[in-house]
């Protein structure tokens, strides 16, 4: 019997997770089954595997967006360990504050009828967070009377614009609609929205697969920089691109048919793969890279 979640350094713990995965064209229906999986604070975990292995489903369950048939998903919150699915709808919404999301298709995930700064300020508005005003020495200067609504809105937008600048979107672009931005820029906006409320976990589902190769590289670079700047946020990344996982992740979990067949440090797993699935995936990736004449050293 696994120990009760301690959550001293774990941000998220999964125990005895089961979910019925419907049939996909790749194969038979199967049961997603994860006996235990922990996400540590500040780490980047990559979920890899062939298509249909259940990695996006597992991500959705971890993010609290899909209810498993059995098992617990426990999150470390300010009020102690909280199970994601056992509360009311209202409590579930309150827990959303700890999560950020970046989806695969940057065209679909942003509303073209709003401007970028408003979109990024959404999580702040939903959870009634305001930017904390500080003076030049960084001391909190929150006045003791309640902030006027327009002032709060101003604070939120200022924080949104500051986050956008961190991801490389200028103030001008922040005033426009996402339709005026390229795919890579839209994905940066999605990343800014995911980070603006300083979440504990950010979930990314194939964040670069819909982008041009050169744009992918700039997003990977950005994610690395952001991670260095803020070491308290953990990232869970689903990708079928193993080299990408190598560049971004600390640990990697390889899934096949709903089971985690291998889990460990990315260096260890990729250099000495234990399971056949991992070896096969690594082989394919290596073949493609060899064809590029990758001989630099």
């Amino acid at each position, binding site marked *: 019997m696994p120990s009760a979640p301690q959550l001293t350094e774990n941000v998220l713990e999964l125990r005895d997770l089961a979910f019925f995965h419907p049939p996909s064209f790749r194969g038979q229906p199967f049961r997603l089954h994860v006996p235990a999986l922990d996400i540590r604070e500040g780490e980047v975990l990559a979920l890899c595997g062939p298509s249909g292995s259940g990695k996006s489903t597992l991500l959705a369950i971890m*993010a609290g*967006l899909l209810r498993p048939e059995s098992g617990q998903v426990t999150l470390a919150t300010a009020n102690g360990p909280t199970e994601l699915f056992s509360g009311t709808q209202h409590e*579930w*919404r*309150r*827990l*959303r*504050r700890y*999560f950020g*999301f970046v*989806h695969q*298709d940057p065209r*679909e*995930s*942003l*509303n*073209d*009828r*709003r401007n970028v700064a*408003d*979109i990024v300020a*959404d*999580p702040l*508005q*939903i*959870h009634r967070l305001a930017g904390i005003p500080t003076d030049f020495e960084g001391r909190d200067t929150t006045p003791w009377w309640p902030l006027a609504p327009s002032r709060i809105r101003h604070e939120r937008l200022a924080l949104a614009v500051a986050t956008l600048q961190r991801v490389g979107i200028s103030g001008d672009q922040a005033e426009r609609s996402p339709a005026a931005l390229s795919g890579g820029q839209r994905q940066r906006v999605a990343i800014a*929205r995911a980070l603006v409320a300083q979440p504990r976990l950010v979930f990314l589902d194939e964040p670069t697969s819909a982008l041009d190769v050169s744009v992918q590289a700039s997003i990977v670079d950005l994610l690395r920089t952001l991670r260095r700047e803020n070491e308290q946020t953990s990232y869970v990344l689903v990708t079928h691109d193993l080299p990408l996982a190598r560049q971004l992740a600390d640990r990697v979990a390889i899934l096949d048919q709903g089971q985690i067949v291998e889990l460990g440090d990315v260096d260890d797993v990729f250099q000495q793969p234990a399971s056949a699935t991992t070896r096969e995936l690594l082989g394919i990736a290596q073949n493609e890279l060899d064809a590029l004449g990758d001989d630099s050293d």
Partner: protein
Amino acid sequence: MNVRVPRGIEVISLAPIVFLLAIAIAPGWLSPVPSRHSDSFLPPSWYESSSDGAWYSLGTDYLGRPFAPVLCGALSDTLRIALLGTLLAVTGCLALGVIHGSIASRGLEALIAAGSLGVMAIPEAAVLITIATAWPRTAPPLRVNASMVAVLVLFAVPTGARLIAERVRALGKTGFVAASHAYGATPFHTFRLEIWPHLREDVAWIVASVLPRFVAVEVGLAYLGVEYREFEGLGRTLTKSFNNLGIGTAVFQMLVTILVIVGLALLPQLLLRAFGLSQFRGNLP
């Protein structure tokens, strides 16, 4: 399943259609039987048997003819006209629809929009005429007018509602609505921030189509002598002038009326374009 066998349910559902077509095309075998004066207005025989023992499954009509064949004959005549009309309508829909779908012509689109306004006005007109004439002379004018306005409103709602429903349904499947939900927004919040900006266009379209219709119906019915009571609106004004003047001036007044209505119908469309709100519904997210 390799071979396409028509399943039982499809065969069964064809049966009523075939039955109706048969009645329409070949009524002769159900022609009314000559009457017997003594047997007019008889109830069905399974309810009460007739005096001479003949079997009338649906009773007889006012001329003493068995009602069943009379009904079939009447149904046949009505169906023939209905089928002919449907055939012509389908041809018209196909022709106009294919042309409209292949050419992106704003003029054609405006014409079709105006046409659908006109077409929708007819059943409304019928109901309005019925209501206006059904109210007694002494009924309070407010109530009469309110009932007529209520009819107009009720007729305007379904089309607009369907438009909005389609839009909301499509929006519900988008990524940004899913993102809003994932970030913990309440349904009201999601509606206000994510869905409402997309509905503004549809609301504008509804205003643009309903507003001129109210005016057109009022003026049009006024020419038929049906109008709001104790109400000096555009309709009454124009028709009074029309009734009191000679034919030349009357024609002029009629042209002015048509121009006013067409202008009112076009003005919201022009305003929509001026504000950059497109009428084309092709861009569902």
